[in-house]
């Protein structure tokens, strides 16, 4: 398959099941809601070392938030419910509770739920106040700038992590420009995040390593400087490869995000130095969800 001079490889991305939730952070204004959300989603690019993958889904207008203030919706994913609960609690405690004027709400009603502010309330040292409004329990925790309001629980959903595609370009600048164009379009899709810096990862990994201590290492088949040293997947004219990783609440959400992302890259086309679109395919070792590029773009 070729779109606008860009070859779409006959391959697929592999993804794995995760647990996820959506949280809504509000604050005195959009600036401080974003600061709090950025702190919460910091150091959350990959479960390999961060314990979770998190990102900003979108900004929310005051009429979309529970307390009528500016807000930000974030998605956070982990490999299991317990790991997710731990990450949510520590990040909420250190990054949202501490953030001036913030409030924290659940943004997802799942079949199961987990603690959000349920344990943060103990920071109130006995002065915390519970309020049940419309069947949901909230905690008012006295803090130095007033009160920190948080919902007691948030829903947990079965989710999908690790959807991806690779952009193969003639130069580093062209690969980056294509990925930026893709991310701009993909951020319009609900229920997904691209957890890496700016949504783009330049250090795609393969499963395993020559070093026993590591369970992932550089994806040498797609490293342009190793074209003559390893069993490379790259043709001579490809000088840079970048990857976009997508986590989503459902497989369909990731399908949609991949389609608009790949389309944005292909719109730049061969004329802008884009040669191929491929995907992280690890021979079925990684996960049960397979995203076939040509089927998505058909």
């Amino acid at each position: 398959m070729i779109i606008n001079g860009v070859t779409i490889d006959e391959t697929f991305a592999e993804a794995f099941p995760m647990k996820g939730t959506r949280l809504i952070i509000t604050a005195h204004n959009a600036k401080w809601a974003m600061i709090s959300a950025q702190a919460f989603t910091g150091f959350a690019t990959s479960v390999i070392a961060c314990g979770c993958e998190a990102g900003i889904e979108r900004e929310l207008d005051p009429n979309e938030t529970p307390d009528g203030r500016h807000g930000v919706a974030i998605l956070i994913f982990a490999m299991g419910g317990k790991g997710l609960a731990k990450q949510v609690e520590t990040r909420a405690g250190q990054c949202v509770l501490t953030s001036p004027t913030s409030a924290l709400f659940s943004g997802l009603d799942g079949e199961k739920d987990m603690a959000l502010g349920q344990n943060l309330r103990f920071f109130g040292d006995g002065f915390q106040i519970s309020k049940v409004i419309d069947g949901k329990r909230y905690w008012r925790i006295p803090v130095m700038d007033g009160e920190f309001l948080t919902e007691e629980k948030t829903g947990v959903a079965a989710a999908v992590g690790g959807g991806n595609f690779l952009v193969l370009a003639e130069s580093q600048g062209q690969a980056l420009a294509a990925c930026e164009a893709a991310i701009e379009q993909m951020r319009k899709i609900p229920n997904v995040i691209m957890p890496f810096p700016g949504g783009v990862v330049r250090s795609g990994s393969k499963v395993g390593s020559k070093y026993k201590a590591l369970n992932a290492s550089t994806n040498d088949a797609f490293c342009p400087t190793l074209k003559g040293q390893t069993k490379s997947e790259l043709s001579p004219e490809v000088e840079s490869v970048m990857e976009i990783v997508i986590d989503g609440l459902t497989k369909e959400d990731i399908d949609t995000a991949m389609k608009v992302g790949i389309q944005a890259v292909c719109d730049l086309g061969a004329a802008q130095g884009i040669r191929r679109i491929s995907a992280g395919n690890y021979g079925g070792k990684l996960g049960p969800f397979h995203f076939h590029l040509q089927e998505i773009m058909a």
Partner: protein
Amino acid sequence: MSSLRFSLKAAPKQRIDCSPLTPDNLADKSLTEIAAIELVVGNTTARVDALFELTDGDSNTIVFANSDSKLDFIGRNMTQGSISVQGDVGAYLGIFMEGGEITVNGDTGIYTGCEMKGGQIKVNGNAGDFVGGARPGRRNGMTGGMVIVTGNTGARTGDHMRRGFILIEGDAGDYCASRMISGTIAVLGDCGAHLGYGMKRGTILLTQMPSRGITANFNDCGSHTLAFLPLMFASFKKLDSQFANVEAFSRVQRYAGDLAGIGMGEILVKI
């Protein structure tokens, strides 16, 4: 299908225990079976059809017409359905109620919503003492649900109240929120003496400073913007009540008490 209707034939001389006449108890009963139910009247009993004129209808929506202040225990233990009352009712309206709705177009006696756990009671009139309270000797009043009173309430509103809402569009009587454990009482009118007497936790929300002021057992914590108030007012929007029309506010003067006890309760007065 129209409502199942109980129209009182004559003003009773003795109090009548109406607790068997709920949607839960009357489900799947024929009109004949309902007519034969024996109600406790004073120190004796009487058949339903001896006291009420019955009109067959959906037992999930019950109407008491020509009601009287001697009809006690209406809606006791009900979990679903609705009861509408035309006229006054007696004591213990909606006691132990877990769900459904009761609407009274008249005044209620003492212990309205006593120890209720869920559902909604709307009194289009005045309510007696101990709204949402606990029975004598008991330590937990209402633990959920909502009581709306369009008129005034008597003394000891929310006595021992543990959870839920009591919304008073008129005035609250003396000792409002006495011994309150938690929950929320909101008053659009004035409050009587000894507001929050023995209050442990919970919130009294007022749109105006009480004419008698705040008692010395409450300390002024200053003026604040509280984020939970807009959420609470948003939840009132769906109610058939003046509270649905109250313009949401979050700026309040906060008083903490009763400091003669643990002092974790609060009175919030709109500023």
